[in-house]
């Protein structure tokens, strides 16, 4: 069970983010929920790379024979963080545009406004 705990944690963070997205009444809140959902992937990647007793894969002051955690998934996590921040920035920029066009950032109200304008 203890071996599963980090994986379960990442699954829980993922699902909490998803539920937050569904319940969201505010686009800024939705963008933050998406960031939470994505942070589940950081936990999963780093958890998969962990080696028992291992330290950081940086040989600046440790012997090359030392047990280290997997550097490949850490590099993937770095990529993940960069992609996450750019997605957040672009979605927030889109939110500003939505606020300017519709004068609301409640996703439900945006839908109903479109229906009104059709009528």
């Amino acid at each position, binding site marked *: 069970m*203890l*071996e*599963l*705990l*980090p*994986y*379960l944690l990442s*699954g829980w963070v*993922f*699902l909490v983010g*998803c*539920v937050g997205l*569904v*319940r969201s009444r505010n686009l800024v809140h939705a963008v933050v929920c998406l960031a939470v959902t994505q942070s589940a992937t950081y936990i999963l990647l780093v*958890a*998969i*790379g*962990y*080696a*028992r007793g291992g330290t*950081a*894969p*940086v*040989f*600046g*002051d440790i012997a*090359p024979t030392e*047990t*280290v*955690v*997997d*550097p*490949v*998934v*850490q*590099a993937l996590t*770095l*990529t993940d*963080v*960069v*992609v996450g921040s*750019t*997605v957040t*920035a*672009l979605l*927030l*920029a*889109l939110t*500003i*545009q939505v*606020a*300017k*066009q519709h*004068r609301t950032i409640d996703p439900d109200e945006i839908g109903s406004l479109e229906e009104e304008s059709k009528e």
Partner: protein
Amino acid sequence: MPRLRVALTVVGVAGVASLLLAAFLDLPDFGSVPHPYGARAVEAALDQQTANAVSSVMFDQRGMDTLGEEFILFTAAVGAMLLLRRLADETEADRLDAHHLGAGVFEAVRLVGMLMFPITLLVGAYVVVHGQVSPGGGFQGGVILASGLHVAYLAGDIPVLRRLRSLTAVDVAEAVAASGFVAVGLVAMAAGSAFLENVLPKGRLTDLLSGGTVPLLNVVTGVEVTAALVLLVGKFLEQGLLTGAAHEDSDA
């Protein structure tokens, strides 16, 4: 919330949760030691005299991937600039001086900001140039550098803000840094190797100049990340200064 949406959410969450659980049960145990790719990556990093194995993976072993990552950042900055451009009915507020240029910043905040500004820049530069020997690198250091510039903004440092808002130089820096990454790859080709292959002398493990092209690519990435973040945050800050039809209506 509509009842249908609640029901769909419950079904969806339960389904995804059970699929995730089934997948997690088949994963190798947390902390179990055989990491075939990790072990080979560490071996390759030591061969290339790059003490920071993560930097070696990022900028040497899969430099091509990181080139794509750089361009993701570049594209995001361009996209945000396009989305946050000034609309035809918007004008920049004249209240720049009173409201946004440091009036109303506590003296204590201003003092700490002035003290932290040079320190943050120094730490950022340190993290960028030591990416091959210690944790950090171009991405991390670039974020610290960009934060340093915005510390000055928070502290109400008027000249720095003015300079940041003349974004052309930052724009050029971003483009030059993005193409610098490609240039390093092309130099390797000109030297008769594959694109982005590590052709420079490797130096000695833990030396500042070790790892061949890794320090070079770290610096290029550091400039790119700094410029992209300054552009992005600058564009968002600019939104606070814009007034237009939409804003006036929402105020009324």
